[in-house]
Structure formats: structure tokens, C-alpha cells
């Protein structure tokens, strides 16, 4: 009996914190829950000149912990909070090779122990929707990352999460000054910041979100629409579109991003995912304005505890106008129980810049995520 009740309460806490809409929960007792995960991996990088294994924390979903709480203030009016901090050592998108050798000492100082604020969020919800206030996801955060393949930890849409800090080498072996992450990434809007956000109730699987806030003293506005449904024999679908604008300053232009993603999982396990984003780039007022564009496609197969997928991404005009970056990858995730993932991934990053030739950057990763 006790076990069953805890299951119900845990499910209600999770759902209440993250599910938008009008759901009314029978459970009324205020609850607080602690949760988190450890996300570690071994990453091998080869930039054509140097190669090395690194111990990393997978940026796709790093080591973190948090607290959530929820309760019923009045009939039909629920409230709650979420506090979440990450604690990553050697983030997988930061390790790199430098002229003096491999750099794998992040954070470089231990004075703050690597803690980073992710969520400091309070919310209230009712039949009219939900309002969040505090540090948390902007309305469009994640809209380019719909992915039902089950391989997110190995080869997720964040293509620079693993090995994004490595520079391309020129043909003679020198550093190009352009990293993998600067040449291609999913441009997933404005991430997390201090904001107030409204989430509509869910209508037939659709919901909309709008947020307004500030990051680095610059105002941010975001709007997005989300869809999620099971369509019987047609399988399952997740999709989202978003828009964001960060106001400019004396030294930066307004930063506007538009994009979205769609992922389809058939009952057989076959799945397809596509992501697109376009962003004003660079944001500095110096230099010619240009748009950077990201396209990503993934095909995968998921059966039981196993998920495998191949993916391909293109990034145009990211570091400089005319740049063409490409990524080819394959990933596998074993998910034997809900709280454990073991994965392996292999990918190749390429960059073309006019007549300049760069060495490929090859990344191989094996790792695990354990949730508690």
C-alpha cells in the first residue's frame, strides 16, 4: 500500500512540474522530492594531428541534482517549485586540444565547485494554464530538440554537445581558430534565464507558451507551440516550433532565432527526426550580418531496451559566411531499466571554408547516465 502511494505521489510531482495544462490531480498532500543524475563518459577525440581519451560529463544531460515540490493552494489551484543545480566536471563540449596539449580541467578553479544554476522556479497552475516565475526554461527552449529515437544521450540533436570544444586543424596541422561548436549547433533559442512564462492548457495535444525575461541585462521574448500525441497505428509524434528575440545592446545586434523540430516513432520501433533553426549571426555589431542555418535528420530503430540511430547534420554560415559544416554520426543506447542508460556513439565533423581545407574531427564516446 505504502509503495503504491509513493508511486502515485512521485508521478504526480513529476507531472505537475513539467506538464502544462488543465490536469487536476486527486493527490492533494504537499510533497517535496529530491532527484538527480550522474552522467559520465569516456570521449575519444582525433583532430587529425592529436588524439586522446578524455573523462567527461556529457553535456547532452549532465550530472545534476534538484528538488521539486507541489501542493494544492485552493481547489483547482496548484503551486510548486523546482530547484536544480548542475555539477559538471570536464564538460564534454569544453575539453579540447591546445597548442600546449590536451585541456581537460574544467572547471579550471574549484572555488565554486562547478555548480551552475539551472532552475530556481516557482509556478502556479489551474484550469487556465500555468504561470512560471524565476530562472527556468524559456518558452522556446527545447523546441529544436523533439526526439523520440531514445538515443539522445549518444547522438542527440545537440550535435556539438560531445566534442564541441575541439578546433579544426588546417591541412598543415595548425589550429584553425574555429571549434566544432562554433561551426555547427542546434541554435536552441535562449536556453534558461530569469523570466515569467505562461503556458496554455493542452488542446488535443497542442499547447502554446510565451515568456519574457532577461539574461545578461538584455531583454528576451520567446513564443512557441508544442504538439505531442499517439496516433494509434500511425505511431507517436512530437513536434514544436519556436521563436525568440534577445534585444541588442551598444555592442550587440538583436538576436532573433526561429526553428522547430518533429519526431515520429512508429509502433514497429522505426523512427525519424528532423530539426531546423535559423539565427541572426553574428550578434556583434561589428562584422557583416548573416544568418546561420542548421538542418538535422535522424533515422533510428527502437525495440525494448535498445535504441540505435544514424544522424546527419548541416550547419551553414556559422563561424564565417560561406562556411559549410557537416556531421555524420551513429549512436546506440541500452536502457535496461528506467533509471539507467549505457551508450556508445561515433561521429565525424567536417568543415569546408572556400579554398581552405580542414582536417576532420572524429569523436567516439561511451558513457552512462544513472538517475536517482
Amino acid at each position, binding site marked *: 500500500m505504502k509503495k503504491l502511494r509513493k508511486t502515485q505521489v512521485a508521478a504526480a*510531482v513529476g507531472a505537475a512540474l513539467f506538464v502544462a495544462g488543465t490536469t487536476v490531480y486527486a493527490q492533494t498532500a*504537499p510533497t517535496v522530492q529530491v532527484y538527480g543524475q550522474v552522467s559520465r563518459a569516456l570521449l575519444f577525440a582525433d583532430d587529425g594531428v592529436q588524439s586522446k581519451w578524455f573523462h567527461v560529463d556529457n553535456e547532452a544531460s549532465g550530472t545534476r541534482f534538484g528538488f521539486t515540490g507541489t501542493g494544492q493552494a485552493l481547489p483547482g489551484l496548484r503551486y510548486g517549485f523546482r530547484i536544480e543545480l548542475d555539477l559538471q566536471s570536464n564538460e564534454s563540449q569544453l575539453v579540447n586540444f591546445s597548442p600546449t596539449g590536451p585541456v581537460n580541467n574544467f572547471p579550471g578553479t574549484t572555488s565554486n565547485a562547478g555548480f551552475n544554476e539551472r532552475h530556481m522556479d516557482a509556478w502556479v497552475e489551474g484550469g487556465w494554464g500555468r504561470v512560471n516565475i524565476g530562472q527556468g526554461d524559456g518558452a522556446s527552449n527545447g523546441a529544436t530538440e523533439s526526439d523520440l529515437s531514445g538515443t539522445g544521450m549518444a547522438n542527440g540533436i545537440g550535435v556539438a554537445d560531445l566534442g564541441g570544444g575541439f578546433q579544426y586543424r588546417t591541412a598543415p596541422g595548425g589550429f584553425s581558430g574555429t571549434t566544432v561548436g562554433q561551426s555547427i549547433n542546434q541554435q536552441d533559442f535562449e536556453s534558461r534565464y530569469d523570466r515569467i512564462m505562461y503556458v496554455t492548457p493542452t488542446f*488535443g495535444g497542442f499547447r502554446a507558451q510565451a515568456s519574457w525575461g532577461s539574461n545578461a541585462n538584455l531583454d528576451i521574448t520567446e513564443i512557441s507551440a508544442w504538439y505531442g500525441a499517439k496516433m494509434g497505428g500511425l505511431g*507517436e509524434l512530437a513536434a514544436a516550433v519556436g521563436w525568440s528575440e534577445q534585444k541588442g545592446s551598444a555592442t550587440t545586434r538583436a538576436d532573433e532565432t526561429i526553428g522547430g523540430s518533429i519526431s515520429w516513432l512508429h509502433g514497429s520501433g522505426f523512427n525519424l527526426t528532423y530539426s531546423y533553426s535559423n539565427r541572426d549571426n553574428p550578434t556583434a555589431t561589428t562584422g557583416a550580418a548573416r544568418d546561420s542555418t542548421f538542418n538535422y535528420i535522424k533515422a533510428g530503430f527502437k525495440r525494448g531496451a535498445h535504441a540505435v540511430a544514424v544522424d546527419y547534420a548541416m550547419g551553414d554560415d556559422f563561424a564565417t559566411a560561406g562556411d559549410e559544416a557537416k556531421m555524420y554520426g551513429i549512436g546506440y543506447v541500452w536502457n535496461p531499466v528506467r533509471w539507467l542508460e549505457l551508450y556508445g556513439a561515433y561521429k565525424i565533423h567536417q568543415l569546408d571554408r572556400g579554398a581552405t581545407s580542414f582536417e576532420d574531427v572524429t569523436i567516439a564516446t561511451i558513457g552512462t547516465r544513472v*538517475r536517482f
Partner: protein
Amino acid sequence: MRKGFNVVLLAAGLAGCGATPVEHRNYRDSDPAKGLFADTTSGEWRRKDTIPTAAPAPASAVEQDEFKKWRESASSPERREFEEWRAWQEWKRNNPK
């Protein structure tokens, strides 16, 4: 490309009309409901005054018999005399001359 994407998204949305809504979680999120301790140990705290109290367990035959004997003795003249004597002793101890 952008226009094509919007068309694909609209078509997918329309195709899904009448489907069962599902809330999808981003693979980056930490879902508390998927944790190792989510439903097995004390990963949560609840207010004590909202925890329902368990119904009292029925007394065994031996316990019922002992209670019956105690109740009968409580109403006996000897028991009342003893309790009055003990109360008087207690009063004297608290009120010394």
C-alpha cells in the same frame, strides 16, 4: 526550407487530430519519475499531518481478556480505596507542613 518545414509540421499536426495527447520530455531533462528511488525508497517528504493514520489493529483474544480484567478491577471497592489512598499520599507529598 523554412516554408517546407512549416508545411510538414502542419500536415503532421492535422494527421494527429483525434489522437491521444501525450506529453513528451526532452531527452536532456531529469525526470524525477524515472529515478532509481522514484517509487522504492524515501525520495520525498510529506507533511506529517496529512499522512493518513492507519486503522487500529484488532486486539488479540489475550489482550481483550486482560482489558476485561482491568476494567472489572477498576470498579471494585478495593481498587477505589487504593486509588484514594494513593491520591492522598500524593497530596501530602506536594503539600508538606
